[in-house]
């Protein structure tokens, strides 16, 4: 197939199977299929989170097995466990260090609402600190529940708009992302 065929006949000049689609769908599909979670295990839920990464539940089936210790390499923060007042600033900093686009799963009732620990020590819902996309119920949620939460998030990612930043969507707790404007000098390809 030469380029001239396409120039002459348009798409009819292509001799092999080609699927066309929107770039957005492609990006969303690839994002949802390789979302890497940050290890943010706090309490009991962390054990179940690790259990879902292990042999029996195996979240590698969803492209999620690569738990990253560095927030710079992670896309999803799974807040697994109760967030104490002392941990809250740390959690926020880890979240801030993650690259956009980023998502948060609040795993377990303690992270979602404080759970049974309605007292001085526990932040009553991690959504007071970071914007949460999916809440997984349970104390602790079984790996099946976590997988369901992950699947829900994947659907959400696939339906999202790739260029929309969180500050515009109004989700979460009023997070403002400073966007650095791109260079105004056009980049010319193919020239030296």
């Amino acid at each position, binding site marked *: 197939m030469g380029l001239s065929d396409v120039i002459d006949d348009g798409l009819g000049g292509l001799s092999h199977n080609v699927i066309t689609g929107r770039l957005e769908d492609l990006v969303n599909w690839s994002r949802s299929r390789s979302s890497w979670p940050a*290890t*943010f*295990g*706090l*309490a*009991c839920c*962390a*054990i*179940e989170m*690790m*259990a879902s990464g*292990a*042999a*029996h539940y195996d979240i590698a089936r969803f492209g999620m097995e690569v*738990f990253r*210790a560095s927030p710079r390499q992670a896309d999803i923060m799974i807040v697994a*466990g*109760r967030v*104490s*007042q*002392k*941990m809250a*600033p*740390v*959690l926020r*900093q*880890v979240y801030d260090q993650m690259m956009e686009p980023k998502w948060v799963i609040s795993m377990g009732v303690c992270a979602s609402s404080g759970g*049974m*620990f*309605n*007292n*001085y*020590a*526990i932040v009553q819902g991690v959504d007071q600190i970071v914007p949460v996309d999916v809440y997984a119920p349970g*104390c*602790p949620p*079984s790996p099946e529940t976590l997988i369901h939460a992950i699947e829900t998030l994947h659907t959400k990612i696939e339906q999202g708009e790739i260029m929309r930043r969180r500050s515009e969507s109004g989700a979460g707790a009023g997070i403002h992302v400073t966007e650095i404007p791109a260079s105004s000098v056009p980049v010319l390809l193919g020239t030296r």
Partner: protein
Amino acid sequence: MTMIADEGAQELRPRSELTAREVMREVGAVLRLSEAEAAKLGDLPEDPDEDQTMVINMGPSHPSTHGVLRLMLELQGETVLRCKPIIGYLHTGMEKTGEQLTFMQGGTNVTRMDYASPLNNELVFSMATEKLLGIDGDIPERAQWMRMLLSELNRMSSHLLFMATNGMDLGAVSMMIYGWREREEVLRFFQKVTGLRMNHNFVRPGGLAADLPAGWRDDVLRILDMLPERLEEYDILMTGQPIWRERLQGVGVITPAEALALGATGPILRSTGVEWDLRRDQPYLRYDEVEFDVVVGTYGDAFDRYAIRLAEIRESMRIVRQILDRMPEGDYRIQDKKVTPPPRARIDESMEALIHHFKIFTEGFKVPEGEVYVAIESPRGEIGCYIASDGSPTPYRMHVRAPSFVNIQCLPHMMRGGLVADAVAVISSVDPVLGEVDR
């Protein structure tokens, strides 16, 4: 990873702010030396200048600190000079919440402390409550043996979790998969019995929440038949493997005197050669009627602690086999109207039973005044429960002596003079569960 959260005086202070006495006191007191003797120890470079040392921060969000433990290490080159664990990042206020919940509800609270062995937490809380009620001698035989069965299976699952995380921390990543594979088998049994994989709230004051389900014996036997072969695999993968031994032997050594002085219990104390296991030495439940060995180490290093835990899985299996032979028939909870809700069938036919049931679950039962401390052997060491009651249905004060909270104090002494590369191996060998450290 740097942290914006500055914890001030809780952090490791720079050397320039410390007096020589403060530095030596920590080491000397543990070794029970005088200050002069401690100053002569001299196994570390003498008073390095501050510009030769570096303080690094590890955690609280770190992949191998077993949760949210934060360590500050002072290094000279690769050598750890000082180390300080900073905890509290998972402080849940459970002792305060425990004062709000009735004795009936208290199990839901304590079971979330040591989430790797929740049944042991419930057990110690229930035993303390029963002692306050004065019914600790009247618990039915079947309940006692069922508690032992669950406690030992929980010890196995907890140690299997240790095998997984210890392997993962040391780079034997496939061990994580294996450890979890076996743990799932035990959890599946727990789910069948209690309805939950973790945080069961199954052991209640007066007995248990329910009887064992039909076919439980086959399920336990399946675990017992499967595990020996899998543990042999562990031996091949780790115990006999030169790399594994190199990484663990002689790392994180602690002496019996140090361990006793620091109050360490469980596998840490036993790794130094001190034979102390509450199951044998202050028997509770029916541990005096079963045969098992208390496994002790010799060198007090990380390898001994690993080997002890592996051997304890085998000992627990031995105990479980004896429990299977001796499990008596009978009631799974005490038939004391005061603490036991009426059976479900009675509620349908009797108004009194309904009222009684309602009162137990709303108001709870009153516990006589007094205070007790009850201790049992959890997979991590002595877990104790101190309850002071003022005669009301809620504890006046409920305190749990968490083994990990005390054991974690050993870290600075195990790491002192070691390499920073071994720090992870040492933390892993202590096997802390941060949920019970911070409570």
